[in-house]
């Protein structure tokens, strides 16, 4: 597992370097870049479903997202990039739970200032969302995220979002959030997928308590079900959901690089094969997380 993560990491690093060089070559065009990476370990959690006790499943997951944004007009930015996200589960032999779920996708979208106080984002991520045992065309998907932000003032901003994924059990999911700096040190940053209450200890160090939400829709292999004693799960679509709650801290290493560490409690996780209506659920375990965010 570690070797695979290192190989994927090296490949992504090469891609980032390549895209950055392309960005430099673009000369005077205003270009911004975002790089977000995180790694999470979730301890063993008892898992049940389909009338079975699967046993304890632990998890390693990682996510790397890189986006380059050329500014086309004063109000319009395009977004190009890629994302790789992988969940790797320590599944007991023959348990009908995928041992990994991965996303390899492009990022295509734009940000636009619609009005004085309104910004919008549209982003589609076409790619492969699969357990990567036998990748086929029907593993391809293109979820769309539409978002809008209302900038009331420096201290208060409202967010509205819509996730559209035709393959998911609920193809359209709305969301709303708020960022409210209600005192000089405290901010309620209630925005999915990481709603938080933040405390600025210094200009560089911030503590937070919040939640993390991981959600995605994937297709498993053609013989996944048959190989695990559940033929109904062959080539099935699974909605994966994971909720984490806990404290953490972020440290601004430099004005454009932030590192983050957190730990806490994972109360709930599910693999929902909604078409044959088979759901596996894990409860109550600990997790630890590290992340890095860079803006250039």
């Amino acid at each position: 597992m570690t070797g695979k993560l290192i190989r994927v990491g090296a490949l992504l690093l090469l891609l980032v370097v390549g895209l950055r060089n392309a960005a430099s070559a673009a000369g005077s065009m205003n270009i911004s870049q975002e790089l977000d990476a995180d790694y999470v370990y979730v301890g063993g959690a008892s898992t049940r479903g389909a009338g079975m006790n699967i046993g304890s499943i632990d998890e390693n997951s990682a996510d790397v997202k890189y986006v380059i944004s050329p500014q086309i007009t004063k109000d319009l930015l395009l977004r190009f990039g890629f994302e790789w996200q992988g969940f790797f589960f320590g599944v007991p032999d023959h348990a009908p739970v995928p041992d990994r779920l991965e996303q390899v996708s492009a990022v295509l979208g734009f940000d636009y200032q619609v009005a004085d106080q309104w910004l919008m984002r549209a982003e589609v991520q076409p790619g492969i969302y699969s357990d990567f045992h036998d990748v086929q065309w029907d593993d391809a998907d293109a979820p769309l995220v539409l978002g809008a932000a209302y900038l009331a003032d420096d201290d208060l901003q409202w967010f509205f979002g819509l996730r559209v994924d035709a393959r998911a059990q609920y193809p359209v999911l709305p969301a709303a959030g708020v960022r409210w700096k209600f005192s000089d040190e405290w901010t309620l940053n209630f925005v999915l997928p990481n709603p938080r209450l933040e405390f600025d200890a210094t200009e560089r160090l911030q503590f937070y308590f919040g939640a993390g939400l991981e959600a995605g829709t994937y297709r498993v292999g053609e013989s996944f079900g048959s190989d695990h004693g559940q033929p109904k799960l062959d080539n099935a679509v699974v909605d994966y959901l994971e909720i984490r709650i806990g404290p953490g801290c972020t440290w601004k290493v430099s004005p454009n690089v932030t590192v983050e560490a957190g730990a806490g409690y994972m109360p709930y996780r599910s693999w929902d094969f909604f078409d044959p209506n088979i759901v596996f659920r894990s409860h109550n375990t600990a997790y630890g997380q590290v992340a890095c965010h860079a803006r250039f």
Partner: protein
Amino acid sequence: MRRSCHCGCLLCALSLAALVAAPLPAQEPIEALKSFSDFQKIDLNRLLAGDILTERGSLMNFPNGISVQTCFAVPSTAEQTAKRLQSWNPSTYADLKVYALRSLHTPCELADFQALDFNSSQHPIRWLLDKTAATTATKSDLNLTRDEAKALTGCMEQHSEPKKANECWTKLLFDRASRFQQKGLAGILPYEISGNTTSPGAQLRSMLLEQLQITREFARLLKRIGLLGNEATPSLTPAYYWTLFDANHHATLALGAVYLLAAGDHYQLADVGYYVSNDYYTSATLYDVWPIQVGEKTGALVWRGDFFAAPMLAYTKGTERIAYGALMLQDIKKEVRCMQDSLKAKQ
């Protein structure tokens, strides 16, 4: 002969004054405004009813700079409006988070700063007090020269007493204001202690030179205050001030000068922030004020351009930069609204 000449000159001056004061047909100021600003659709009726036009400036090549433009009208003569803009005090409006703003004498006196008060439980003021106390001869988060950092360190003696901070900052601001009054922009000391040496004057010039149409419109004024051209000392006498306000939840001290020039049929102003203690480097606000008449209504049409240079802007890119500009525009719109109320109230 002498008398007739005098009368001739007097008549000439009177006719010029009348020309300056008389409201212009509406089309002329609109065309003038369109020629250099980002506003191409201007409805004077709506502006006179209280509307404020806003436009975020284009992204600059200068990495630390950001600009916004606003346009509004007030039911007052252009001359009165220009004079009131020169002496406007925002500290009476709580929403604007200006703790104090005071005029300076020419030459300035230590007593001009007696309203400076660090004795407050407000977090932003405590923050500036802490940063002042934490300043050493070689390190500070504040905008200081090395000599100022040394002087501040010696003055504070590692204490964070508000009274001591009042004294130390009074001395520092007095020295900076005196230099500026004597030498103009050439007298501005650079910021050295937080890393790279930064000259507020150079930052202002870099920002303005990217806005060629605006610079052309304000060329006479900018030359006379030394921001453009080779004029070493300004040939206009401004209204000097110091202020303490909240910027990004940090109390910030600033020194500024507001220049006013009657430019033919209209008035131009430049409010130059030649020293800022923290969070940003410098700022300039330019105003163009025209007399207008729409039907029976007369008033003044005001174009305002705000230019800010801040270190964090170099790292604020993409959507964050757009959002930053949009939020800055909200702040300035709020200020313009207060300014309009104040100008109306004095009618």
